[in-house]
């Protein structure tokens, strides 16, 4: 009897705990911002001293007080010696800044390595803040020959790595000869470095500060590609330079094999390739010298707190000659999940971040902005559509369905059946516009309103009529249309529940919309990796994703190129056909072949022709509606940005896209805290 009473007590306790949990979770948001109020604004810059130049009359440049101290103590050469002869002069967004402070960001673990990449954006050339052009960065300039087959890249004389070693053409040559051309490190050469016949393009050193790339064919996408060679996706394939003096100790071409093997063992790896791949990237190595504004202090993205500190040799100054960056360090704090990260941001514990900030929380952020001591900026996406339905053009698992997916009229009908205004209200807080996945109106590639809004009006009647015309006239007793073989037509929409997009909700709405015109569809929520695998093997019928490559159709992995991998589930078996020279897979249709021809031609054409080709591409894209766009130009993808109210020079308007490495394109090195 006693033991049974004990157990019932346990039951009651269990319930009590659940209740407590719920009450606690309900209280949490109200409670959290409060302590933040009392905290002395944690982002307060460490050095209250203004950035007035230390009175060293012969110096052309100014530096951070912490560096000046080190110089005075003899630990560091003077700023003039640290900067290159022609430093990069970066425009500031609003004001000349002041030195000091820590920029606090949140990240969600080692897989969130691109959080670092986006802040540092450490490439030879960069995309401009608005994404309209490529601008000099590490390279001070470039020059191509008339037919765009040879590109000279000019480096900065006297520029140094973060450890003080000179940065020269040899660092690019080291990458070319010992990373790109090393078959262990680079089994297949990236498309951007390939000649038309598949061989590697040539890279040669003209002098210590000039490097020339030579392609067998014209290459007009060269700079666009170069602007993304910053170690993104923690891949050595995304490099175009590396610190030769540091990397040599991990490369068999420079180190005795036994010695290297000992190093590999000691670091706990199996092969030298694994060790090299880690040491080649600052945020994985923690020690590798960098050319970015901040270099790791020994911590890495695998740590709970990952700190990158001021690079005393950073090659850029503001218009008044103050060496950048203004902010002393960037501190990435680990959050176990994105919900806690959002909560921390509401509490004012994050100084500048759009990554992982959920757009749906926008009202929460705005309402708590004063309490949390931050402001909220919206950077809408760069074009395209923030939720698209991609229809697999090579679905063969069920021929009846595959045939419907390839039917253009069927897709047009389904597009007209979607109530985009409802999606805009429910999933995008009422902002953005109903559109297809084409560039933004301000972009030169914009094909025109006719194409941007094609098939987007909500017209169930027209949809019904088209569906009847397509031949789907028979219906079952629940009102759903039947396929020619008498079975109910049932489409599957695969969705990955992600933090930044309400795609499952959007999918749910679309399923309802389609049911209204008699087309049955069901949602499958899939785990990301599984979804990706099924995408590659052509096992998805329809997927929901975003269209964010419209600004860059001719470089990287554009989603309208069936050859792109990763891409969307556009036509995976056509990619197979191309990759196997027609041995396996499905031959591209003329329309899809035209897309690829356009992309290939644009890569060897001048700017004007590229614009023409891009517009044609997007007209074909919108007209064939392989991809149904819903709502676009919203800040859904990392575009709701929480910014500490004391942090200045963060632009209100900026291009926002992955190729731009947003916020990297807004130049975080010139952000500063007002004293």
């Amino acid at each position, binding site marked *: 009897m006693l033991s049974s009473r004990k157990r019932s007590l346990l*039951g009651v306790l269990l319930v009590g705990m*659940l209740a407590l949990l719920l009450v606690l*979770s309900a209280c949490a948001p109200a409670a959290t911002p409060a302590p933040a109020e009392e905290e002395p604004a944690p982002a307060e810059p460490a050095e209250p001293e203004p950035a007035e130049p230390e009175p060293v009359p012969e110096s052309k440049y100014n530096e951070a007080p912490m560096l000046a101290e080190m110089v005075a103590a003899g630990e560091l050469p003077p700023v003039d010696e640290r900067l290159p002869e022609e430093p990069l002069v970066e425009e500031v967004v609003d004001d000349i800044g002041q030195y000091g402070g820590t920029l606090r960001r949140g990240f969600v673990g080692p897989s969130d390595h691109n959080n670092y990449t986006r802040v540092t954006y450490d490439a030879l050339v960069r995309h401009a803040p608005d994404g309209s052009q490529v601008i000099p960065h590490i390279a001070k300039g470039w020059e191509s020959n008339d037919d765009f087959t040879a590109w000279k890249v000019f480096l900065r004389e006297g520029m140094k790595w973060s450890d003080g070693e000179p940065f020269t053409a040899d660092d690019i040559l080291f990458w070319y000869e010992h990373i790109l051309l090393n078959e262990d490190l680079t089994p297949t050469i990236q498309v951007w470095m390939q000649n038309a016949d598949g061989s590697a393009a040539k890279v040669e050193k003209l002098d210590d500060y000039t490097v020339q790339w030579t392609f067998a064919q014209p290459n007009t996408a060269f700079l666009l590609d170069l602007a993304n060679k910053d170690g993104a996706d923690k891949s050595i394939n995304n490099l175009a330079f590396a610190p030769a003096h540091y990397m040599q100790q991990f490369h068999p071409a420079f180190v005795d094999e036994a010695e290297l093997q000992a190093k590999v063992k000691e670091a706990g790896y199996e092969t030298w390739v694994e060790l090299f791949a880690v040491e080649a990237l600052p945020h994985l190595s923690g020690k590798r010298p960098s050319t970015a504004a901040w270099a790791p202090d020994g911590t890495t993205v695998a740590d709970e707190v990952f700190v990158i500190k001021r690079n005393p040799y950073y090659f850029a100054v503001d218009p008044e000659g103050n060496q950048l960056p203004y902010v002393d360090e960037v501190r990435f704090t680990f959050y176990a999940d994105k919900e806690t990260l959002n909560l921390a941001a509401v509490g004012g514990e994050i100084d500048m971040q759009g990554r992982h900030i959920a757009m749906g929380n926008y*009202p929460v952020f*705005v309402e708590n902005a004063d309490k949390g001591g931050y402001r909220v900026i919206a950077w809408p996406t760069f074009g395209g559509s923030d939720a698209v339905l991609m229809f697999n053009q090579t679905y063969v698992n069920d021929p009846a369905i595959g045939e419907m997916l390839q039917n253009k009229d069927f897709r047009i009908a389904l597009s007209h059946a979607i*109530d985009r205004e409802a999606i805009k*209200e*429910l999933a995008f807080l*009422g902002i953005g516009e109903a559109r297809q996945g084409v560039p933004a109106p301000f972009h030169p590639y914009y094909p025109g309103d006719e194409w941007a809004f094609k098939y987007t009006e909500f017209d169930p009647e027209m949809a019904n009529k088209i569906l009847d015309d397509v031949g789907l006239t028979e219906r079952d007793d629940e009102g759903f249309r039947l396929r020619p073989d008498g079975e109910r037509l049932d489409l599957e929409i695969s969705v990955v529940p992600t933090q930044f997009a309400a795609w499952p909700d959007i999918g749910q709405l679309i399923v309802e919309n389609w049911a209204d015109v008699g087309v049955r569809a069901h949602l499958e*929520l899939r785990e990301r990796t599984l979804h990706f695998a099924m995408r590659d093997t052509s096992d998805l019928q329809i997927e929901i994703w975003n269209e964010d490559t419209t600004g860059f159709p001719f470089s990287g992995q554009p989603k309208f190129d069936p050859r792109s991998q990763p891409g969307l589930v556009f036509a995976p078996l056509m990619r197979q056909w191309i990759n196997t020279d027609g041995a396996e897979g499905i031959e591209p249709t003329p329309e899809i072949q035209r897309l690829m021809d356009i992309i290939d031609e644009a890569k060897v054409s001048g700017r004007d022709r590229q614009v023409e080709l891009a517009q044609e591409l997007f007209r074909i894209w919108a007209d064939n509606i392989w991809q149904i766009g819903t709502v676009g130009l919203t800040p859904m993808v990392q575009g709701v940005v929480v910014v500490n109210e004391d942090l200045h020079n963060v632009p209100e308007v900026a291009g926002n896209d992955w190729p731009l490495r947003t916020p990297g394109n807004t130049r975080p090195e010139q952000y500063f805290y007002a004293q």
Partner: protein
Amino acid sequence: MSVDRDSKTVAPWSDDGPQGDGPQGDGPQGGDPQGGDRQLAVDDEVAGAPALVAEEAEAFYVAPNWKLVWWRFKKHRLALVSGVVVIMVATVALFPGFFSTQDPNETDAVKSFIPVQRLHFFDEGRLRPFVYGVEGGRNAETLRMEWQIDPTKKIPVEFLAEGYEYEILGIVSTNVHLLGVASSDGEGEIYLLGTDRLGRDQWSRLMHGTQVSLSIGLVAVSLSIFLGILLGGISGYFGGTVDLVIQRLIEVLQSLPPIPIWMALTAALPRTWSVEQVYFAITIILSLIGWTTLAREVRGRFLALREEDFVVAAKLSGCSQPRIIFRHMLPTFTSHIIAASTLAIPVMIINETFLSFLGLGLRPPAISWGVLLQEAQNLQSIALAPWLLLPGLAVIFTVLALNILGDGLRDAADPYSQ
């Protein structure tokens, strides 16, 4: 206490009277004057009314087991109330469509995050239920949906109103609901528990979630009982090697930490399965681990009863083994099984809820309490729409009621024990 117990030994029905006013539990005050007199007699002069006592004692001794349990159970007032709550929840689970006011899956773009609407019963002193209409829209600065009550707009509410079409138990199609907007003008809608981010009615979703969550609990427990009685019975009745094997199996299963095991098993469910398949799989997973305790109890009972005279007598009379087990042994502890399973249901409900809450159990578009809570598990809901956490209260009340009911049933299960 001891006095009470003494009087009970003589007349344990003294509270209610053995004539048993039936399950209403009115007791002797129920209006029958004779009963009242008799009660007085029992209370005041137990020793002085031997005739009456004898008559009632006989009723006590000949009363079937379930009647004794019922008499005893009735005295546990809290358990009785809990029983009523459980019956109410079960009714909702049987007819969720009837109790809903709107289609639980119907989304509405311009009606997200409407707060809880209060139901007013009296309008100007007369019983004329209504709710105030709401009006609102998106705040241009914060982009939040904001709603105000519109006191000029009263939406009349009536019982047994006509609403959306639904099916009762999947058989009969009807559109009658317990509560609905009086259909005179058809304007306005009621949101008793507000709406979620897609403008779906939270009250109706809660009703449908009740069906799923409760039925998972019931089905899982039924499966557990089946396994528990079968394996426990075999183990206890036959003994020997069979007993040894089954007992070791139980020990192994009980030594496994259940939460990680459930998480592993549910995580291993193919993501390609449909909602219905997942539902059944989760039920089976929950019951596969839940049967061990009951099997232990059943075995213990069998071991004890095996040597009892009546079992030996049955054996000697040539009864078949199934007859001995099912006709003679099992009925002596049915009440225990019922009590044990009542206590197991809330555990199952909690398990389903937390698995779904973690995103490992049921997934939308299925609606269960766990799914509802999971959908409320984000900053937006907690900060902007705290009413979305209300399904948590449903879990608390139901689980509490089931626990107290189970407790009362267990105490009552052996009416002879003191």
